[in-house]
């Protein structure tokens, strides 16, 4: 974008970085400046003037000598955005132009959101990660940038995905692995990485099985060690429900797993049917005759 008002300035720009200059104006302004880089603005004419560089993210003001190059050292402008350049001479008209400060190309920080922090094993796309890539000045790097996602389990299995950012963002989904434990979920761009921990816990009980033994007027019921379908021990405290159905009644007892098994005593009823379940998972049934 180019704005010109009657105040005539001119001259040559002296670039301190590789800059492309807008053409045709008497004030010469770079089209783009990389965040944190040095740059210069040249005017023509004579006398004193005030130079403003105005943006939502930064504002600079300099008293300048018309006809000279105004150099801004590295670090002067570091926030990406579009900047308006205004040059005003005392008692005279104003000239304006604009240019973009673009993010530095080198990533310096990743904003990495990983969810959930805890989930059951063997869930397809159960873990998601989203990344925003920033430069050293906190500018979002909007240019396409490859992000490497890596989920590694304690058993050594590694899932990898490389996703190229679009508008500075990238995301991926990962499967939770078959083994319980603490997984490391990392996102990496070049030398910059960010890591999150994802705890994988056993899934629902699988092949829930109990046995029964009579002891006097009581039935001693006990499950086998309760495991999920991948062989991971279901955690103690998980509720197992024993149900005894008999002529004229039904008894139900909820028992937490202790040392991997659930045990309970229930009264003996001839012809009873005893079943076991945990959550929505049904186990075996036992029919009991005296």
């Amino acid at each position, binding site marked *: *974008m180019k*704005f010109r008002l009657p105040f005539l300035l001119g001259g040559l720009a002296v670039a301190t970085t590789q800059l492309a200059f807008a053409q045709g104006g008497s004030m010469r302004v770079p089209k*783009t400046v990389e965040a944190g880089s040095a740059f210069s603005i040249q005017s023509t004419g004579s006398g004193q003037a*005030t130079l*403003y560089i*105005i*943006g*939502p*993210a*930064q*504002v*600079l*003001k300099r008293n300048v000598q018309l006809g000279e190059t105004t150099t801004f050292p590295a670090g002067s402008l570091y*926030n*990406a*955005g*579009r900047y*308006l350049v*205004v040059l*005003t001479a005392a008692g005279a008209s*104003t000239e*304006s132009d*604009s240019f*973009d400060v*673009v*993010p530095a190309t080198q990533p310096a920080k990743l904003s990495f*959101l990983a*969810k959930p922090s805890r989930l059951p094993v063997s869930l397809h*796309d159960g873990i*998601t*990660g*989203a990344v*925003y890539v920033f430069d050293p000045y*906190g*500018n*979002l790097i*909007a240019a396409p940038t490859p992000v490497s996602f890596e989920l590694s389990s304690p058993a050594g299995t590694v899932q990898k995905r490389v996703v190229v950012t*679009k*508008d*500075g*963002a990238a*995301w991926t*989904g990962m499967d939770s692995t078959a083994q319980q434990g603490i997984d490391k979920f990392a996102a990496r761009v070049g030398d910059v990485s960010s890591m999150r921990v994802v705890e994988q816990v056993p899934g629902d009980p699988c092949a829930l099985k109990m046995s029964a033994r009579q002891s006097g007027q009581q039935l001693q019921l006990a499950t086998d060690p309760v495991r999920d379908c991948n062989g991971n021990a279901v955690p103690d405290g998980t509720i197992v429900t024993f149900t005894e159905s008999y002529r004229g009644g039904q008894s139900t007892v909820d028992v937490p797993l202790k040392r991997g098994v659930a045990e309970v005593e229930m009264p003996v009823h001839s012809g009873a049917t005893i079943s076991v379940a945990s959550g929505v998972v049904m186990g075996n049934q036992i029919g009991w005759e005296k």
Partner: protein
Amino acid sequence: MFKPLLILSATLAASAYGGAQASVRVEPLTLQGPRPLQEQTRAAVIRDYLQSWQSFSAALDQNRPALLDADFVGTAKEKLADTIQQQAALGVRTHYQDISHDLQIVFYSPEGLSIELTDNVEYNVQVIDHDKVTATQRVSAHYVVVLTPAEVSWRVRVFQAVPE
């Protein structure tokens, strides 16, 4: 669910200067990410983003960083607050008046904790140095904006113009 093109008058974008309203156009969704975006969420994000232009404009016009609190957070808020400090130190104020927005929501993160949109925006900038208007200029820019949910609204966390 979404109309191909939505053109509306942004009542929330009413200018404090003369009551002019920015025109707002919302492009169809071309969303990356697995999470579906509900219409209610989409409307809230657009509403809150347009509102942020009002607080941004007022804050830089009055050099009052506190006016950013309701609509900005994180990096965006820090950078705008720094600009206000710079302006105040230089005796400068700027008035930004948005004229039109062409919005597109481009990313909804899988866990629902961020939404990214782009905005081809036109606005006027007025530069005021020690209460004297130095320049008024119309600017076109392509903004990339990231919003994150707060208690009752979405707040702008990244607010950055990039070359198209």
